[in-house]
């Protein structure tokens, strides 16, 4: 049945209200403080390492993100851990809290479609994430400028910004996961737990799962050991995890000398200038599938939550 009127009516009203809520919320403040302190710590540690090593490095700025001083994680490793948490924190009660506060029927009785409400909430959270990570990125770059005393090259800025975009997409995937659970479960605690369980599965257990699946599908030969298909399959399964996609994309973007993600045969190495960096465009091409994968995952998850929400009864 055709319905008149635009599904976008009221979208920006929802976006601005929700974004204002996020930005002023105590929850977001806590997360921002957490990110701030740990990021400053990680970068400071990285700078300490760089000062002692003192190499002639073309990509000094990018090392800020990737160098770690044991036992602390590098800035990137730390982000890989904290970004999903921020995404989940912004999304886990997006829909069910409206039911719990009994504001849902009041909102939907206004001349807007449900599309505007759910898409507005998603956009607002994504905007908040983008703003937070952009500020963080500027902060890290600024610290680098102050302490290292060298400006980043154009390529480093480009790589850094692409890293930012990938990270926002990665956060968007976890935001969509959390919002999906917030639509499916009427209880905010249940949806938070479900989101965290999913995160735990992908960040801790997924590599083990991938190994087991590959071992079962392509068993090791008693004499020659594991067949090459086993490693391929294991990699294919790990790439179902947004964490893997994000890690690979980050490696490709922030370590310009990365030439391949995954298995490389010895023959393929012949004629390759080992250790020399790839141009930015080539690095981007290398990680393009990972970036597309993250964005596709976000869209698929949003579609699921949209369909579930459209079919829900307004009455709680």
């Amino acid at each position, binding site marked *: 049945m055709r*319905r*008149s009127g635009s599904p976008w*009516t009221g979208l920006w009203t929802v976006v601005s209200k929700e974004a204002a809520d996020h930005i002023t919320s105590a929850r977001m403040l806590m997360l921002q403080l957490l990110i701030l302190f740990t990021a400053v710590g990680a970068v400071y540690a990285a700078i300490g390492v760089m000062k002692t090593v003192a190499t002639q490095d073309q990509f000094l700025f990018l090392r800020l993100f990737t160098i770690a001083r044991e036992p602390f994680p590098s800035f990137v490793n730390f982000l890989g851990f904290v970004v999903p948490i921020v995404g989940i924190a912004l999304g886990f009660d997006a829909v069910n809290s409206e039911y719990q506060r009994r*504001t849902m*029927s*009041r*909102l939907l009785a*206004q001349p807007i479609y449900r599309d505007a409400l759910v898409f507005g909430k998603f956009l607002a959270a994504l905007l908040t994430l983008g703003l937070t990570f952009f500020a963080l990125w500027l902060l890290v770059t600024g610290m680098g400028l102050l302490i290292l005393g060298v400006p980043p090259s154009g390529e480093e800025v480009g790589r850094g910004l692409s890293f930012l975009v990938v990270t926002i997409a990665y956060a968007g995937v976890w935001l969509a996961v959390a919002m999906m659970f917030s639509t499916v479960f009427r209880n905010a605690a249940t949806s938070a737990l479900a989101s965290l369980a999913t995160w735990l599965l992908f960040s801790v257990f997924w590599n083990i799962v991938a190994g087991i699946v590959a071992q079962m599908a392509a068993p090791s030969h008693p004499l020659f050991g594991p067949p090459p298909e086993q490693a391929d399959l294991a990699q294919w399964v790990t790439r179902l995890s947004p964490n893997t996609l994000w890690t690979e994309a980050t490696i490709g973007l922030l370590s310009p000398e990365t030439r391949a993600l995954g298995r490389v045969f010895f023959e393929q190495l012949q004629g390759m200038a080992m250790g020399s960096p790839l141009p930015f465009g080539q690095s981007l091409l290398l990680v393009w599938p990972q970036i597309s994968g993250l964005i596709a995952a976000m869209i698929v998850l949003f579609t699921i939550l949209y369909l579930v929400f459209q079919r829900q*009864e307004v009455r709680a």
Partner: protein
Amino acid sequence: MSGAIIETRALCKSYGSFQAVKDLNLTVSRGEVFGMLGPNGAGKTTTILMLLGLTEVTSGIVRIVGCDPTQDPLEVKRRVAYMPDSVGFYDQLSARTNLRYTARLAGIPRAEIDERIDAALSRISLLGVADKAVGTYSRGMRQRLGLAEVLMKKPDVAILDEPTSGLDPEVTLHLLDIIRDLKRDGMTILLSSHLLQQVQDTCDRVGLFYRGQLALEGRVEDLAQTVLGSVYRVSVEAEGGDVEAALRRLPGVSEVARVGATAFALKSATDIRPMIAGTVAGSGGRLLGFSLIQPSLDEVYTTYFRETANAA
């Protein structure tokens, strides 16, 4: 039908095998206050949601403010205001901010928003606390704020679902006053409630919902006639002698019940008031007083549902 602002024809709604609304034919004229009565689960809220296009119609036709809410929900929701059962707000935001959000969603021109909000808040006497967080509000204040949202929208039709449930008598009276004011302004009001006394005082017409159907419909007095039959109810206060037996012997009296030490409730097919004094005196009792009981909706309600339950 001219003048009808809400009209449903053979409206049905099923959830799986459960029929929440069955063959509902409802007509409400412009400027009328219509009361929807019925026990919980009778299909009142489901009907309201279908009128607003907030839930799918299984079959049948709905017309409200000249539109079909299944095809043109935005236009319907622009001209119809809805105050849900136990309305909720964002607790951390002030009343004014809450209303501003819905005003913008409702598409009220920006220049008018603040003015309309102030007018609405002052009408329900919440202007003084307009900038306090709604989290600090009592239940009555929230309900009033819900009504302010309706006022702010200046709708053609206001649908109020249980606006007075759980409120103390003073707030209830205040709310009903405002509702009557709205009627004077020419707004059509659909009021759902199970508090019969209020509906009786406020509504032009009422409909009794029972198991998803409009079991009875009409003016309150007419309803009483239909359900209770043409019965005169008289309460008599008298003491001494054998008053009860004497009253029972009166022509047309079908029932005499002792409801207190000196109080009796009579039901009779004719107006027996002229004979009461003589009868009581004749039996050696002293008459303290008597009066005709106006049929209340409460009675209509309980009698009707008792009868249908017995019949089932």
